[in-house]
């Protein structure tokens, strides 16, 4: 089985839709099959990475806690858009550990190095 390097692009806030959870479920499966995978958070997707995310108050299962387990699946590449953070008055200190903040130019460059991209 040859290898794919997959970029999963998260564009939606965490709890209004199931896109974030669906993207994470997919990422974990790819990780468990030892596929190369990177997670990108742009637009409202950056809200998924807030430290104080809590879906329970909205009666939504809080999938964001599972981000802490990404390294167990060998998913080390978690990238966040600086521009998207700035537009939402957020900065890196509001986010969970283990994410890398990049400019959109660099994100574009990184994305082009993947063989496939799926957007949620």
């Amino acid at each position: 089985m040859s290898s794919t390097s997959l970029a999963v692009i998260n564009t939606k806030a965490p709890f209004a839709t199931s896109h974030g959870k669906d993207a994470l479920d997919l990422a974990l499966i790819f990780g468990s099959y030892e596929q190369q995978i990177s997670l990108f958070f742009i637009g409202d997707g950056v809200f998924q990475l807030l430290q104080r995310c809590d879906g329970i108050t909205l009666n939504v299962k809080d999938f964001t806690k599972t981000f802490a387990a990404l390294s167990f699946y060998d998913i080390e590449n978690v990238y966040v858009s600086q521009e998207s953070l700035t537009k939402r008055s957020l900065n890196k200190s509001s986010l969970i550990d283990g994410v890398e903040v990049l400019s959109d130019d660099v994100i574009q460059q990184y994305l082009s190095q993947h063989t496939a991209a799926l957007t949620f």
Partner: protein
Amino acid sequence: MSVYTLVVTTPPHQNNTATVIEFAESILTAGHQINGIFFYQDGVLNASTLTSIPNDEFQAPAAFVKLHNDHQVALHLCITAGEKRGLTDQDGVININPAFTVSGLGEMVELTSTADKVIQL
């Protein structure tokens, strides 16, 4: 010649789904291969036998079945996503079109790792 995996995340009544069919037919006509179409999120609704689309609208579920019958394109359904949306193949109640293969995300790994291009619509 390239091998494509298509990923469908939109339900039968959305126009993106009609685009999948057109795209799939075009790449087959051009001599490329499709190793499978994977249905995830609301895309799984294309497998439901209970959906009834008015006659004058595009019949996406029927078009997928035709694609499968004419070109042996495998249609893989993420059953976890399907069960959340009322699809089941349990005894007594089966509302998944038999043209679709009940699969999981592991199948998506298999498809994408043997494809040259992965296209999500």
